Every structure is written in structure tokens, then in C-alpha cells.
């Protein structure tokens, strides 16, 4: 059955490498999807105030669009979109009073009561495709690539929308094992990268990000896999600042989990847009002979 795909604000530009690599994987895996028409920004962060329903409107509108298409599932790739849409959905499902207020406020829209299922590509791989089926599709096993699985916050917290155990998750490890990589477990896998504090307290965010990368390197990782464009910015893009500020910092490639999947599924490396990753990222994959030397 066809499902809706929700891209979110960053995936068409700065995180094109996340979207394009994922869509290539959808095609290989035979996922029948349609990009949600008229999607709007989810707001990136879920409103945490009990008296603020206005910020729930945006994600609920997206969920109504999905229901209108007659789809029962909406697929997300960005962790923050997943979290915001899934939490708004839980609220509409479980809070009768707030559901009534929101539905009444949006009188131009059909009523919504949480009928749609919000999924992230990672739990879709686990629960719908299945690891065994995925393993059968692997054309280029990423053998000997030592990857640290980095979850960040919004895939695991709060519990009501967690893809896995908030403190002891395994979904990303199992995913990476299925691709053939050597998984490097490290204690900072679920530690926050600093998130939006890159705006409010950039130095504090930089130090937290450095701690995470350093931890991965110390445990023997040669790369980091993640799912969120904000984590990628803090841990990937800002690595130059980290290397300049912390003498013990070491450079480490950071990939979206979908890019590693796209390579393992044997897709053209061009779909993964490695030019948006750190320069060393594509070099590492070339040196391991996972992709050919001509790919940028």
C-alpha cells in the first residue's frame, strides 16, 4: 500500500544527501511512496507548554494532508520531523479536550483524531521490511567499516514516541550490522549534540559535540552514522571549528544512515550527494572499495 513521505524543511537543500540517498533506497526496496502534497514545516521542536496549542497546528495539518490522500502511514527521515509529527499525533489520539480545541480552531480542515501512523525510516526497515529481507538486498557489504551508531535525542525521547529503549537502544546497531559494518558501541550514542544551542550557546554546543566525536574515536570508530540534519551540522559541518578549538580532536567522517544503506544497496554514489559531507567521507568509502574512484 502506498505511503506518504514527509521531507521537512532541510531535506531539499542542506540535507539533500539525506533525502536523495533515502529515496534511492525506497526505490530499490520497492517502497511505494508519494511525497506529501502541500506539506508544511512541522516546527522542528514540539511545543512543551500545556497552554500552547498554536504550535501543534502545523504538524497536525501535515497529518491531515496524509489522511486526505487516503494513506495510513507517513514516513519521515529527519529525527526532529519524526518526533514533532509523532508527538502531535499522540496528542490528537489521546487528549480529547485538546483534540476538540484544535479541530474546532481549524474549522476549514476535516477533523483529525490520530488515524495516521507516523514512522521513521529506521523503524520502517525494522518493522515492515525486516532485517532479514534487508540483508538479502545488500549488494556491497560494508565489511570492516567501523561505524559508531549515533542516535541523538529525538528518535529515543520521550518514551511515548521512542523507536527503541531510550537509554539502551539497539535498532541502529542492528541496522549497521545488517549492512555488514563493524559496529562500534560508545557511551555517547544517545547524548545530545547541543541541538539548537548552536544558536544560543554555540561554544557550549561545540564542546558537547566534541565530547561525542572524541568518545566515538576513542572507542575505535572510523565513522559516525546518524539520522538528523541538526546532528549532522553540529557533528559534521562544525568539525572544522572542533578541530581548531580542541587539541585532542580527530577528524571523523559523519554519514546519514541512508547514505550507508544506499551504498550497500549498490546504488549510484551520485544519489548520496557526498559533496555535502566532509571531504574525508567519500575518501573513506573509496579506500574501502565500496564505491569506485571516480565518484565525487
Amino acid at each position, binding site marked *: 500500500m502506498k505511503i506518504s513521505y514527509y521531507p*521537512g*524543511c*532541510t531535506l531539499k*537543500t*542542506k*540535507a539533500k544527501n539525506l533525502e536523495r540517498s533515502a529515496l534511492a533506497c525506497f526505490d530499490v526496496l520497492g517502497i511505494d511512496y508519494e511525497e506529501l502534497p502541500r506539506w508544511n*514545516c512541522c*516546527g*522542528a*521542536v514540539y*511545543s*512543551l*507548554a*500545556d*497552554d*500552547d496549542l498554536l*504550535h501543534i497546528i502545523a504538524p497536525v495539518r501535515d497529518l491531515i494532508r496524509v489522511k486526505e490522500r487516503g494513506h495510513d502511514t507517513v514516513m519521515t527521515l*529527519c529525527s*526532529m520531523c519524526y518526533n514533532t509529527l509523532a508527538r502531535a499525533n499522540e496528542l490528537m489520539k489521546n487528549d480529547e479536550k485538546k483534540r476538540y480545541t484544535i479541530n474546532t480552531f481549524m474549522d476549514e480542515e476535516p477533523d483529525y483524531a490520530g488515524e495516521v501512523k507516523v514512522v521513521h525510516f529506521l523503524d520502517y526497515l525494522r518493522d515492515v521490511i525486516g532485517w532479514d529481507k534487508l540483508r538479502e538486498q545488500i549488494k556491497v557489504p560494508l565489511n570492516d567499516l567501523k561505524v559508531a551508531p549515533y542516535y541523538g*535525542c529525538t528518535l*529515543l*525521547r*520521550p*518514551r511515548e514516541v521512542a523507536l527503541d529503549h*531510550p*537509554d539502551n537502544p539497539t535498532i541502529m546497531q542492528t541496522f549497521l550490522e545488517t549492512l555488514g559494518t563493524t559496529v562500534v558501541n560508545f557511551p555517547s550514542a*544517545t*547524548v*545530545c549534540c*547541543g*541541538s*539548537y*544551542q*548552536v*544558536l*544560543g*550557546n554555540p561554544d*557550549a*554546543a561545540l*564542546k*558537547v559535540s566534541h565530547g561525542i566525536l572524541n568518545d566515538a574515536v576513542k572507542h575505535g570508530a572510523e565513522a559516525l552514522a546518524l539520522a*538528523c*540534519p*541538526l546532528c*549532522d*551540522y553540529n557533528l559534521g*559541518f562544525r568539525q572544522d571549528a572542533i578541530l581548531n578549538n580542541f587539541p585532542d580532536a580527530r577528524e571523523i567522517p559523519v554519514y546519514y544512515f541512508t547514505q550507508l544503506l544506499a551504498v550497500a544497496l549498490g546504488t549510484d554514489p551520485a544519489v548520496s550527494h557526498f559533496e555535502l559531507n566532509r571531504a574525508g567521507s567519500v575518501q573513506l568509502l573509496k579506500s574501502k572499495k565500496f564505491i569506485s574512484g571516480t565518484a565525487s
Partner: protein
Amino acid sequence: MPLEIIKFSSDEKYKKKVMEISGQNFHKCYQCGTCSGSCPMAEHLTILPRRVMALLQLGVKEELDKSNTPWTCASCHTCMVRCPRGIDIAKVMEALRLIRLRQNINQIEPSNLTKKEIVGLPQIAMVSGFRKLTS
């Protein structure tokens, strides 16, 4: 060390407001410190989350107003999933932020961002940062 006894009155109105916005009863906190021990931003906070809970219980608004804690919190929810008393501390931090933001006081000024920053920052950083730190 001699203890000084001071005259002190709890700001009940402030406490009520925090409770209403957050929907959380911070009186449930028994000061175990799990939140502070779990906070990734702890070293950058002027008041650790455990103490924020204690100050709220006592209604010490002035101390909380001076603190950078709600503005350094990244809403990562680690404290929340680990709190043995089931307090959603992330929601309490949001309430402390909103009480100030709703007076039209911005924590960061979007217009002060340089062109370089705007070009470099992903949309997700700006949307979430503005949502949390501006009115």
C-alpha cells in the same frame, strides 16, 4: 559555621504559573540529582536542574530569573526519561523560558545573525532555535 536566618517569602504566583504552563508538579521532586547527573549541558549551567526544582518548590523567582539554565537547556529530554518521579523537566524548562519570552524579551536576536551564519546554518537549526529562544 553559624547559620543566618533570613526573612523569605515564596512567590506563589510564579510557582502557579510555572505549574500551569508546564503541567508539571515540581513538588514531586525528592532531590536525587539524576537530572543533573544526566544533563549534557550541566557544566555550562549556572544552576543545575535538581536545584531548579528545589528553587521552584521554595518559590525563589529572583534566583531562577538570574539563571542561564533554561536558556542553555537543549530540550534533549534525557532528564525527563530518567526522572524516577516522572517529572517532565524539559516542560518545566520550557515554562521558565516562556514566562520571559511572553514578555517579548528575546534571548537571541535573529536580526543579529551574520550573512555567513544564515547561509551556513541549516533551516532546522534556525527554526528550532527561533522557536525556543525568541518570542
